[in-house]
């Protein structure tokens, strides 16, 4: 016999259309957020153990039901609106810069990429990956951008801390050496 809290979590999450935060569940159930986390972990495991076609995931700071990734071929046949168009390399690189450097201005992004970032950033904004999150306090008052909740949802991340550290992507010594040699004043 499942305990009432577990059942209540299943009932509420089933009716929510955005990831529901543990503190909200805690408030509704009158238990501690830590207890909610514990119960949700238990639930997620039970679905896994029973080999269910859905999963309970922690994403963008909350819990939600999703179809099991295994079954994507079936779900894809059903989904009417096709998957959004793939992102261009330019869009992905710009998104990476905003994700790791936020809050960041358009000019800063352009300076890192060496190309104008305006059109790409507008597209990312319209597609819900980035948003204005403030103004530079400096004299320029440049608009500063950051990633959205939707960014976390689309990437399946719980929070920005789940992004792999940028250090992992710094080119290895062989690339750095090649670049260095290529630019070296002594040539070869």
């Amino acid at each position, binding site marked *: 016999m499942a305990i009432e809290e577990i059942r209540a979590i299943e009932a509420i999450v089933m009716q929510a259309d955005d990831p529901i935060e543990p503190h909200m569940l805690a408030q509704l159930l009158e238990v501690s957020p830590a207890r909610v986390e514990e119960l949700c972990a238990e639930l997620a495991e039970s679905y896994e153990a029973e080999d269910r076609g859905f999963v309970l995931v922690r994403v963008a700071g909350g819990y939600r039901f999703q179809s099991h*990734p295994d079954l994507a071929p079936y779900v894809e046949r059903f989904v009417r609106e096709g998957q959004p168009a793939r992102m261009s390399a330019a869009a992905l690189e710009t998104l990476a810069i905003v994700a790791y450097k936020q809050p960041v201005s358009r000019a800063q992004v352009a300076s890192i990429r060496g190309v104008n970032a305006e059109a790409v950033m507008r597209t990312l904004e319209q597609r819900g990956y980035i948003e204005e999150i403030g103004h530079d306090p400096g004299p320029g008052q440049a608009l500063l951008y950051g990633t959205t909740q939707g960014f976390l949802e689309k990437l399946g991340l719980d929070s920005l801390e789940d992004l792999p550290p940028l250090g992992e992507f710094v080119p290895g010594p062989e690339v750095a050496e090649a670049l260095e040699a290529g630019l070296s004043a002594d040539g070869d």
Partner: protein
Amino acid sequence: MSYQVATPVFEGPFDLLLHLITKEQVDIYEVSISTIVDAYILELERMQSLDLEMATEFLLIAAILVELKTRRLLPGRDDVDLDEEFGLWEERDLLLARLLECQTFKQAARELERLGDRASHSYPRRAGLDEAFLALAPDLLAGITAEKLRAACVRVLAPKPPPPIVDTEHIAPIRISVQEVVEGLAARLPRLGRATFRELTVDAPDRLTVIASFLGVLELVKQGLADLEQATNFGELLVIWIGDEGASLDALAVEDYAG
């Protein structure tokens, strides 16, 4: 000059440099300036309208490379101004740092793509509340009048106020018009017949003017009024006027740069 260089579409100057250095495994000094110019002109032809900011950035880097290359070819090193030399090293290091940073974000972008791909196999439940519960939800239209709706629509459609101050913190303002430079060159070149790029820019007050001049030369090449020649890989870039005496500029094409 040859237009057969097969280059992929480059997203920007860093892309091209990274490609030249890492993919082709070449020493940047062995890449002739004409290869860079070729690649650049190919890019121009692909572009409907030239992004002046990108072109400037591209040429800024090309200029650093040309400078580095020329420096390396100086016969003796005794006459080298040490301050200038250090400045050059600083620029080289800055360029290296920017290339590494660019490469880092390229890798990070691949990881974001991988995460997105993985997440896209799991479809979220977004059904929301059943009708039974919807009836209990607060009526969001309470207090909303047709007039408020109209005002909201006007608010969205109204032209946005300009940002407080244009954010130019990292981008040097472009003060010279490429059109002016093109006109200047079109006036001078027919008389000179041929001139090295260095001669043409010897009294340029700053690097941006040199860059604008380079853009201007490329524009003349594009319009078939000038040709570029480089005797050897390490030689000076020679600009040759091949237009008629009274050749008129294609005003429209020049506007692409200015606008």
